[in-house]
């Protein structure tokens, strides 16, 4: 028993080092990104020279600030809609066997497989023909559609790990389907839903191809601005706004995680 414990300890030690290395890998570019927002050189030259000039510049860059605001709003609305609609569909797939189910599931692949560019151009043309036009509303339509497959797949993976036993038990105790859905299924799905909403948020917040084609003149979102900035000159201002964004979302996310007990204490 002692040797087993010892082995476990060593294993845990390795595990923690490994996890640390993974986190290190994940954060290298992000730390570099943040560091460079405080670097004087416009061409990202080393050695590092501390400066806050890019933040000063940013404060007067209305375009970038408005675009950031639009991005956050769009991502939030997208997250709510996509998570609700996607969870409903994932639940149906997990709990019901019906004709056409496989086809419906297969239909989730085109939105993630086909390069976004093609979907974006096709949307632009269809929205033009049907009079939907361009703008934030068109972007919302597109973002939700792109987020849905992620939500359905992630919530579905969570549901696949649980059988329908809990709901059957609830039904046998006389719960109506709606009651059993809200009281039993939703709590089971919740970690999956939270994870899915993270995906949905990220898909929208990061989405530039679709947004690029659907943005109306004068109304744009952050990734579109960043994409354009690559052409004009990728100044550390872009790093500055990204740094602010990640700090803000980190705080929002931490509060959100505290409330929802995401990460789980099972």
């Amino acid at each position: 028993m002692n040797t087993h414990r010892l082995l476990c300890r060593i294993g845990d030690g390795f595990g923690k080092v490994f996890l640390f290395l993974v986190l290190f890998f994940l954060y290298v570019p992000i730390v570099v990104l943040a560091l460079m927002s405080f670097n004087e050189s416009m061409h990202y030259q080393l050695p590092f020279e501390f400066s806050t000039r890019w933040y000063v510049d940013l404060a007067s860059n209305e375009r970038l600030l408005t675009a950031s605001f639009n991005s956050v709003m769009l991502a939030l609305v997208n997250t709510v809609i996509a998570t609700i609609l996607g969870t409903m569909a994932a639940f149906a797939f997990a709990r019901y066997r019906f004709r056409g189910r496989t086809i419906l599931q297969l239909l989730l692949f085109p939105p993630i497989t086909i390069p976004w560019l093609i979907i974006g151009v096709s949307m632009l043309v269809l929205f033009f023909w049907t009079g939907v036009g361009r703008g934030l509303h068109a972007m919302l339509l597109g973002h939700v559609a792109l987020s849905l497959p992620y939500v359905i797949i992630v919530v579905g993976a969570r549901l696949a790990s649980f059988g329908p036993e809990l709901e059957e038990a609830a039904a046998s105790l006389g719960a109506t389907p709606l009651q059993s859905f809200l009281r039993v299924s939703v709590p089971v799905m919740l970690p999956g839903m939270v994870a899915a909403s993270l995906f949905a948020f990220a898909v929208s917040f990061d989405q530039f191809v679709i947004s690029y084609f659907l943005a109306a003149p004068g109304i744009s979102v952050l990734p579109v601005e960043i994409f354009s900035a690559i052409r004009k000159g990728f100044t550390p201002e872009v790093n500055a706004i990204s740094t602010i964004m990640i700090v803000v979302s980190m705080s929002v996310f931490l509060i959100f995680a505290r409330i929802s007990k995401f990460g789980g204490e099972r």
Partner: protein
Amino acid sequence: MRKIGLLTTAALALVLTAGQASADGEVRVLNWQGYGTDEAWAIEAFEAATGYEVVHDYFNSEQEMLTKLRTSPGAYDVVLINSAFTGQAAEEGLIQLIDPQVISNFGDLSPGLRDAVEFTYEGDLYGVAWTWGLTSIAYDMTEVEPGNTIEILWDPQYAGRVGLRDDSVENVSFAALATGQDMNNPHDLDAIREKLRALKPQIRTYWASEDEWNKEFTADSFDVSTYWSGSASRSAKAFDMPVGFMIPKEGAIAWLDGLSVATDAPNLDGAQKFIDYMVSPEHYVRWDTEVGAPASANNEAINQLPEDFFNRAVMGDPEATANLQFMAPLTDEQRETFLEIWTETKAYFAE
């Protein structure tokens, strides 16, 4: 659940209303980002003079510009179009006729550029000549003795030190010039294919934008690279980079940009005034002296530049620019063929 619903509705309403900005008193411009029209001082001056507000939208490729015009009628007033595309845009009904009378600076424009046949469609004027420039070869002055031939790109001395723009028409044109062909209508495509494939040991990387070029150059990625004349002078002037610019004896690619008025432009008066301001010497001189610009189509503007300026001394010299070939409109089939040749070459480079 109900709270979430309310929040969603509120946010949705916000998102939807934000989509409808007013068009009154606005001039909507479609251009490459950072290409003269969106300089803060220029917008300020124009707004002060006319009371119109300037709003920009950008494109990253000519096809995108066309797609945006096609799918958003009535969304734009002024659009920048390379003269090789003006005819196509006019044919598709994307841009409208321009009356030269309303452009007060029209008379000062260099006749050779102003009256270029590319700006007309069925004999009518659809674009106002604005700027022109060269795509040629830039080099690191501290490392390279440039000579005067395009063969420098194939020179083994610079193996692994050459940069190219990832652009099919441009690279096919360079290969056409190097093999002694008409870049606007090359006949021996196999020779071009071979010439491009021979670049494999030479090429270090592709660049996509001026900014990327500057970053690659500062990171010492290449010694010799294709580049744009206006950008080369900007790199040298604004960023103090040791960039030299060479016009080979085989010729270089010349391009001409014009400003056009979109069909159904909501603010026709604003569009005309904006174009007039853009081709004026006051805008150009400040643009070139403070920021760095391609050559102006306005002779008056060039004459107001300091004498040693690249755009006056080199680009203004008729002899140096005598054997330039301007990019001509290409057919869809030609573009597709050029792209195929270039893609095949890239696949070979990646092997």
